[in-house]
Each structure stands twice: as structure tokens, then as C-alpha cells.
């Protein structure tokens, strides 16, 4: 699986090199529109209107000096992108604090104004790249990037890229693997710490009872997610365990559960765009717990 995928990535890179040469040869400045059109041509699936993928700030005709991919366009991520002169920010999660980047109630919000001013001052273009990166074929871009980060590409089920058959461990053992690989401080689990686990279902990012319940009801020992509401999928997992089922649920935190999928996105874009630098900007874990207080947010503007 891993080799097959790597080969496809290399093929995609080869295609991109062909695409990139004429633009450079014409001596034309690379615009955001150029980058987006290459993304569209290489996503491996039909580009669909609707959904949340769109330019959130800036415009398609603006020149691109560099590309940053990141999990969420937090103020910190934008500062890092501006500092590295990467003015096209490809973000998986929103900029303005809701999935749809709704601004109807935030027009006078001081933080919205401040963030927008920063974006304009640094001539940033922010592109929300959520739905299509998940729709990528042959493998959902987030799923592949997370599998790669976890060292799990060899265990990915050929028919279902959310499913892994890992060497047997325990629920605690699996938690430790996440802690080591993802540097996660505040991950949480529902279920018996000693539960043997090898059949793992994943839904990186947010998940809810529907469609989540069938993921727990199948033959998987454990479901791994980023985030869920406590009265919804988490309550279902609790009740499953209380009813004697041998199941576990791991909740990693939304950003940490998906962000290495955006590292893979940077690698994918490097194959499509040769004219400017492309870099993945990792985010901090948003939280700390009282036993290990840390302060990692960059407060300088």
C-alpha cells in the first residue's frame, strides 16, 4: 500500500513538473488562481461547488510568493506564514471560528477586524481546503497523512482507508503511541485501559453519533477520532462499555488528529508548484492540562 501510494505521488509530481514549466517559461507571475487550478486538476476526483472550500481572504489574482499549509488558520499560523513570506495559506479548518467562516454576526467583532487587517497588511490569501482534501483519491489526503505520521500506511485496509489492522496492543498502548507520535498532552479515552486492540477505525477530526455509531458497532475494537460532543458519540461509547461490549474510543483533539494530513498536503503541493517554496506549518496543541502547564501561543504581532 505504502509503495503503491508513493509511486502515485511521484507520478503526480512528474505531471506537475510538466504543468509548471510553461507557466515559468512564459515568465508570468504565479497567482493563487494558478495554484488552485493545479490542485483541482490533481485531486483525483470531481471538483464540486458548494461545501466550505473557497478563498476566505484575499483574491485569486494575487501573486503568490510562497505557500503555507496548516491545519487551522489561527492568528499564530498566519503570523508564521507572514514571517516566512508564504502568502498563500492553505488551511484545512476555518479562519473565522466557524465551519462556514460565517461573518454575519462578527462584522464589528474587534478580533475579526484585527485578523483581517493582519491578512491585508501582509497580502495573504487564505484558502479553506477541507472538503476536497478529504475527497482526494485514491486516498483521503488527511487519512494518508495521518497514517504516514503514525507509521501505519502498511496496515491500512485496501478497501477502506479509515480502517487499520495493527499488531495487537492495549487501549493504553495505543494511547501511548499517539502521545509519542503526535506529541499529544490532552488525549482522552473511553473504555478499559487493558482492552486488547488491533482492529482500529479512524475518523480524524470531528465526528458525531451519525455516522459514528456504525463505526463502533462494526468489528473494530477501537474508534479513534479528533473531537465529539459528550452527549453524543462519547455517551454512546460509554454506554457500549457499560453494556459489556469490548470497545474503546480515543479522542485526540481536533487539530492534533488531522494536522499531519496537511503536512502531506504540503508534499503534494510541492509536486504541483515548483516556482515558489511550499511549507507545512505545524500548530501547537491548543490545550494543556493542570499537571503540565505550558504556554506556547505566540503573543507578538
Amino acid at each position, binding site marked *: 500500500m505504502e509503495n503503491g501510494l508513493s509511486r502515485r505521488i511521484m507520478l503526480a509530481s512528474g505531471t506537475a513538473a510538466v504543468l509548471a514549466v510553461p507557466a515559468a517559461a512564459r515568465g508570468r507571475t504565479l497567482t493563487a488562481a494558478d495554484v488552485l487550478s493545479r490542485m483541482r486538476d490533481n485531486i483525483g476526483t470531481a471538483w464540486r461547488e458548494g461545501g466550505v472550500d473557497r478563498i476566505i481572504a484575499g483574491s485569486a489574482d494575487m501573486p503568490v510568493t510562497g505557500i503555507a499549509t496548516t491545519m487551522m488558520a489561527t492568528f499564530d499560523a498566519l503570523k508564521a506564514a507572514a514571517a516566512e513570506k508564504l502568502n498563500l495559506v492553505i488551511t484545512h*479548518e476555518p479562519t473565522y471560528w466557524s465551519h462556514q467562516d460565517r461573518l454575519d454576526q462578527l462584522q464589528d467583532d474587534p*478580533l475579526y477586524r484585527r485578523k483581517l487587517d493582519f491578512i491585508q497588511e501582509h497580502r495573504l490569501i487564505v484558502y479553506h481546503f477541507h472538503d476536497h482534501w478529504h475527497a482526494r483519491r485514491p486516498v483521503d489526503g488527511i487519512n494518508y497523512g495521518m497514517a504516514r505520521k503514525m507509521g501505519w500506511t502498511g496496515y491500512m485496509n485496501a478497501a477502506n482507508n479509515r480502517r487499520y489492522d495493527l499488531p495487537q496492543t492495549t487501549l493504553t498502548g495505543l494511547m501511548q503511541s499517539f502521545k509519542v507520535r503526535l506529541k499529544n498532552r490532552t488525549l482522552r479515552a473511553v473504555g478499559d485501559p487493558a482492552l486488547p486492540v488491533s482492529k482500529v477505525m479512524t475518523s480524524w477530526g470531528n465526528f458525531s453519533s451519525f455516522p459514528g455509531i456504525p463505526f463502533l*458497532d462494526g468489528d473494530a475494537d477501537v474508534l479513534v477520532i479528533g473531537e465529539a460532543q459528550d452527549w453524543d458519540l462519547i455517551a454512546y461509547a*460509554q454506554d457500549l462499555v457499560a453494556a459489556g461490549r469490548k470497545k474503546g474510543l480515543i479522542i485526540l483533539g481536533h487539530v492534533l488528529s488531522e494536522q499531519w494530513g496537511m503536512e502531506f498536503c504540503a508534499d503534494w503541493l510541492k509536486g504541483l508548484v515548483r516556482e515558489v517554496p511550499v511549507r507545512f506549518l505545524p500548530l501547537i496543541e*491548543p490545550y494543556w492540562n493542570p499537571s503540565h*502547564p505550558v504556554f506556547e501561543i505566540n503573543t507578538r*504581532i
Partner: protein
Amino acid sequence: MAEPVSPPRNAQPDILQAPLHTGPITALQYIARILDHTGAPNRDKTIDHVTAGDPTTAVTGIAVTAMATMDSLKHAALSGHNLVLAYDPPFWSGNDDLDRLEGNSLFLEKRDFIRAHNLVCFNLHDHWRDRMPDGMAEGMAKALGWTRYQVGGNPENLLLPETSLADLARDLQAKLNDPTIRVVGDPKLAVKNVATLWGAAAQIPAIKLLNGPLDVLITGYTHEWEAVEYAQDMIAAGGKKGLILLGEVMSIDLGMKHCADWIASFVGEVPVEFIASRAPYWGVG
């Protein structure tokens, strides 16, 4: 003894005006009495409703709990309490959407358990919050020893003796026995002005509070891509703010203990018991 008065023939059915009868007191009658005591009006759209069971069941005891989990229901049945009042619902979605649970084995098991023990489950959510003052906030402030720090008689806003964000988080962790508290912000941040949104916090109310005078917002759960990102961004823009996430259940559990005490103050006929919940998850330090 006055003759029982029959309701007018064409009156609209109203949960607050259950017909009089002389038999054992039913779940419906207790529910009506409890909602009436909150003094809160019915919302146009409310999630306070009977979520399972037969509301004409004669009540043997009242169990009050944070969430109608399998564990809470088992505890209620074992104690002989058949009216279960829970802040969060039994069937794993905000509105107890049953459409997609057709054939789900855990649903059938939980429903059959409820039937076998004659349980009646009622969501006591909106009325408890719409009570004046907010019953949840009053209960949580009391449990934390913060009642004297209420601002203007409103238990949702507190002015605490100054401490640090890390110490406040440790204090909450100890008092609520909450192993998986998560905190956003500078651990050394000086905090005294506290706003609370017990349970879940929606995006706009959380944003409005963060833009007010508070130093720290305490809530149970809020989406990471909404108020969590907003709090991070405020801090990244130089704002001196903190956000504490307790988890839904740990942020309401003792508020429902207060609810049980309150119900016991006006229900004398049957026992009223609070069923405590534990944090649903564990961490690895």
C-alpha cells in the same frame, strides 16, 4: 373538601395543567410540578420532554443525574427510583433522534432496560437553565464554594480572589474530581473575573463573553474550530484571556446535585436521589 374542578372541555393540553386525580402520583404530575416550580416559561422549541417510558407511570422515587447514561439508569433502577431527570438525553444526540437507531442493538437494550424497570426519562435541561437564577450556575457556584463571589446576584459571573490560571484549573480539578481538564492560555495569567457557561458553549455567546471584562471563561465543551480557536486568537493578538474546558459531564454534575436538593425541598411523597457521574474518559498524563 372542594369538588375537583374539571378542566374546560376545549382547553389546550398543557403540561403545566395536568388534570387532577386522586390515584398515585404519576411521572407526568411530578414533571408538571417540577417545571412549575422553576418558574421558567416554556421555550417555543425545547428539548425538555419525556425521552423514554410511559409518563402515566406511578412514581416510586426520583433520580436526578447529569446524563441518562446506562450507568445512571442502572443505579436508578437498583435504588427503586423510576422517574429519571437528566440534563442530557439517553439516546446519544441532542434531540434524541431515533430515526437512525432502527435495529441498533444498544438502543434496543437500553429501551428494553427502561421498559423492564418501568423507568420514565425526562430531559430537565432548558427549564433548569431558564430558572431565575439559572439553577445550574447556582448549583455549580455552591459546589465550588463560590456563592459569595457572585457578581450582582448572578451565579454565572464571579469575582474570585486573584489567582493564576494554572491554580484555578488545579482548584477545579480537585473540587470536581475531573482528571481531564483542558486549558487554553498562559498558566501564569492573573485571573479573578470569571464567566461560566456550564455544559456546552455555543460560538457567539462564548465570543461575546470573551470580549467582555472576564479573565477566564469556564465551560464544559465547545467546538475546537469555534470558541477554542477564538480564544487562542485573542491571546495571540495580546489579549489576556483564558479558557477552561471541564468536559460536559464534569461541568454539570454538581449542578444537578443542587437540582436534586431543590426538588427534594418541595417533593415530600417519594425519595429524591442525586446520582453522581464520573468523568467519562481518562488521559495518559
